[in-house]
C-alpha cells in the first residue's frame, strides 16, 4: 500500500502497524464487514415479507393455511434459533439439489441416499463443480440470507400477528359498519394502524438480527468472525512478512466495539422513529406527546 512497506522487518512500530493494517488480507477482513451489513439489509425486508405472510396466514379463514401460519408463528418459541440455522442450510441445499436432480437427470436410477451419502448427478450439483469460486460464495451467501429470512420471518410473524390483534376491535367493527369487505378492512384499517403496535417488537427484532449476524460463520460464509480468527492467529515469520503473536483477543475486541457501536446507533435511530410514529396516535406515548406540545 505505502511505498515504505517494501521491507516490513526494518520498520518501527507505527509504520509497521500502518503497513500491517493495509495488507491484502486485512482488506478482505474489512470487506467482510460489508458482507455482514449486506446480510442485515437484505434479510430485514425479506424477513418482514415472510413475517407478514405468516401473520396473514395465521389469520386466514382457510384451515390448513391457518395451521401453517400458526405453526410458523409458534416455531421460534420452543427451539433455539441456531438449530434452525444449521438445519435449514443443509435442508435447503439438499432440497434444491434434489429438485434439480429430478428435472435434469430423470433416467438416473440409483437412490439418492446411499447409506451415509447424499448423491445427485453431476449436472444437478449446486453450484456446478465447474463454476468459479465466486459463485460458490454467492450461493452460500444466498442460502444464508434465505435461512435468516425464514427464521427472522417467524419472529416477525410473531410480532405482526400480535400487532394485528392489538388494533382496537372497535376500529374493525366501524369498518364493517361502513360496509367494507374483510379484504378492504384488512388493508385500509388494520394494516395502517398495526405498525404502531408492531414497532417496539420490530425494533427489538432489528437488534436481535444485528446480534445474530456472527452466526453467519457457522453457515460457512467468510464473515468477520472467520477473518478475525484467521488473521488474529499467531503468524509465523516463515509464511508472512508480518509475524505477530496470537492477536485474536484484540481482533475480537474490535468486533465487540463494532457491534456495540452498531446497536447503539440503531437504538438512537429507532427511538427517533418511535417518537415520530407515535405522533398523533391514540396510544399513551402519543397522548403524552400531545400534552407536552
Amino acid at each position, binding site marked *: 500500500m505505502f511505498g515504505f512497506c517494501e521491507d516490513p522487518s526494518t520498520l518501527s512500530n507505527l509504520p509497521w502497524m500502518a503497513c500491517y493494517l493495509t495488507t491484502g488480507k486485512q482488506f478482505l477482513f474489512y470487506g467482510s464487514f460489508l458482507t455482514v451489513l449486506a446480510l442485515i439489509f437484505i434479510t430485514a425486508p425479506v424477513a418482514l415479507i415472510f413475517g407478514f405472510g405468516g401473520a396473514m396466514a395465521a389469520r386466514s379463514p382457510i384451515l390448513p393455511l391457518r395451521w401453517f401460519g400458526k405453526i410458523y408463528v409458534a416455531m*421460534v*418459541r*420452543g*427451539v*433455539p*434459533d*441456531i*438449530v434452525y440455522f*444449521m*438445519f435449514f442450510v*443443509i*435442508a435447503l441445499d*439438499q432440497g434444491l439439489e434434489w429438485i434439480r436432480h429430478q428435472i435434469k437427470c430423470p433416467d438416473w436410477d440409483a437412490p439418492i*441416499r446411499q447409506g*451415509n*451419502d*447424499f448423491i445427485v448427478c453431476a449436472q444437478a450439483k449446486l453450484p456446478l463443480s465447474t463454476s468459479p469460486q465466486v459463485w460458490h460464495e454467492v450461493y452460500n451467501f444466498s442460502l444464508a440470507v434465505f435461512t435468516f429470512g425464514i427464521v427472522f420471518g417467524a*419472529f416477525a410473524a*410473531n410480532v405482526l400477528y*400480535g400487532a394485528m390483534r392489538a388494533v382496537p376491535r372497535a376500529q374493525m367493527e366501524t369498518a364493517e359498519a361502513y360496509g367494507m369487505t374483510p379484504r378492504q378492512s384488512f388493508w385500509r384499517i388494520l394494516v395502517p394502524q398495526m405498525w404502531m403496535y408492531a414497532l417496539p*417488537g420490530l425494533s*427489538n427484532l432489528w437488534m*436481535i438480527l*444485528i*446480534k*445474530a*449476524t*456472527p*452466526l453467519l*460463520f*457457522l453457515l460457512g460464509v467468510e464473515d468477520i*468472525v472467520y477473518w*478475525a*480468527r484467521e488473521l*488474529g492467529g499467531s503468524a509465523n515469520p516463515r509464511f508472512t512478512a508480518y509475524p505477530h503473536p*496470537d492477536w*485474536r*483477543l484484540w481482533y*475480537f*475486541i474490535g*468486533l*465487540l466495539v463494532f*457491534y*456495540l457501536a452498531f*446497536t*447503539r446507533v440503531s437504538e438512537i435511530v429507532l427511538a427517533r422513529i418511535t417518537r415520530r410514529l407515535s405522533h398523533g396516535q391514540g396510544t399513551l406515548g402519543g397522548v403524552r406527546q400531545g400534552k407536552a406540545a
Partner: protein
Amino acid sequence: MSCWETFQAYGLRSIGYGERLLPRTDFTLCEQFTLIGSGLIWNIYYGVLALTIGFFLAIALAVAKASDNLWVRKPAEWFIFVFRGSPLFIQFFLAYFLFLSLKQWNSIFDPFTSAALGALIVLFLNTAAYSGEIFYGAFRSVPRGDVEAADAYGMSGWTKFRRVIYPTMLRLGWPAYTNEAIFLFHATTLVFFSGFPAWQQKGDALYYANYFADKTFNPFIPYPIVAFYFVLLTLAVIFVFGRINVRLNRHLPQERRQRMRVRPQLIR
C-alpha cells in the same frame, strides 16, 4: 446392540461415562436419541447454574442502575450495555481468547479455558445483564403508593427494600424473566460452536446433532430430535417459572394476577 444397551453405553457419554468411541457407522434412531439426550445434560447444567448465580447479580445490577449515586449507576449501566449490546457469540470467543492469554500468564487460569467453567462465566454475566435490565424496568414500575406506604410505616433502607420493593419488583418482572430463562437455555447451544473445545467429544445436544448431521448428510433426523428435546425443556421451564409466578402473585385477587405470556423478545 439393543436400545437399552445403547442407552447404557451412551446415556452419560456427554459427561464422560460409558463407551469412549462415538458410533461411526449404521446410526440407529436410538443412538441419536440417546446421545443427543445425553448432550442435553450440558444445556441444563449451563442454564440452571447461570440462572441461579446470575439472579443475584441481576438484582444487584438492577438496584445499582436505579441508584442516585453516579459511581454505582455508571458501572452498572456500562456492564448492562456491553453485554446486551453485543452478540453472545462474540462474547464467547472474546472470553475464550482472553482466558487463553491469561493462562499463559498464570496457570491459575487453566480451568477457565474449559467449556465447563469458561462458558459458564460468560453465560452467567450475560444473563445477569439481561435480567438486570428486566428487573431495573420492574424496579421503576413499583407503584409509588407502595413505597409511600412503606415510608409511612417508618420503614427505611434495607427493610423497605426487602419487604416492599423487592417482592413487587420480582412479581412485576417475573413474566419477562421467564422469557429470559427460556432464551438462556436456548443460548447454551452456542457454547460448543464458539471456540470452547469439546474435550474428548463431550458436548451438548446440538454438538451431537451436528455430529450426526455431518456424518450422515441427513439433517432431517438429528435436528428435529434436538428441537423435540428443547420443546420439552422449554415446557419444563415454563412450568417451573409458572409455579413461582403463581406463588409470587398469591396475595392478589384472581383477575389482577399477571398472566404468563411467552414472547421471544430477548434472544441474543
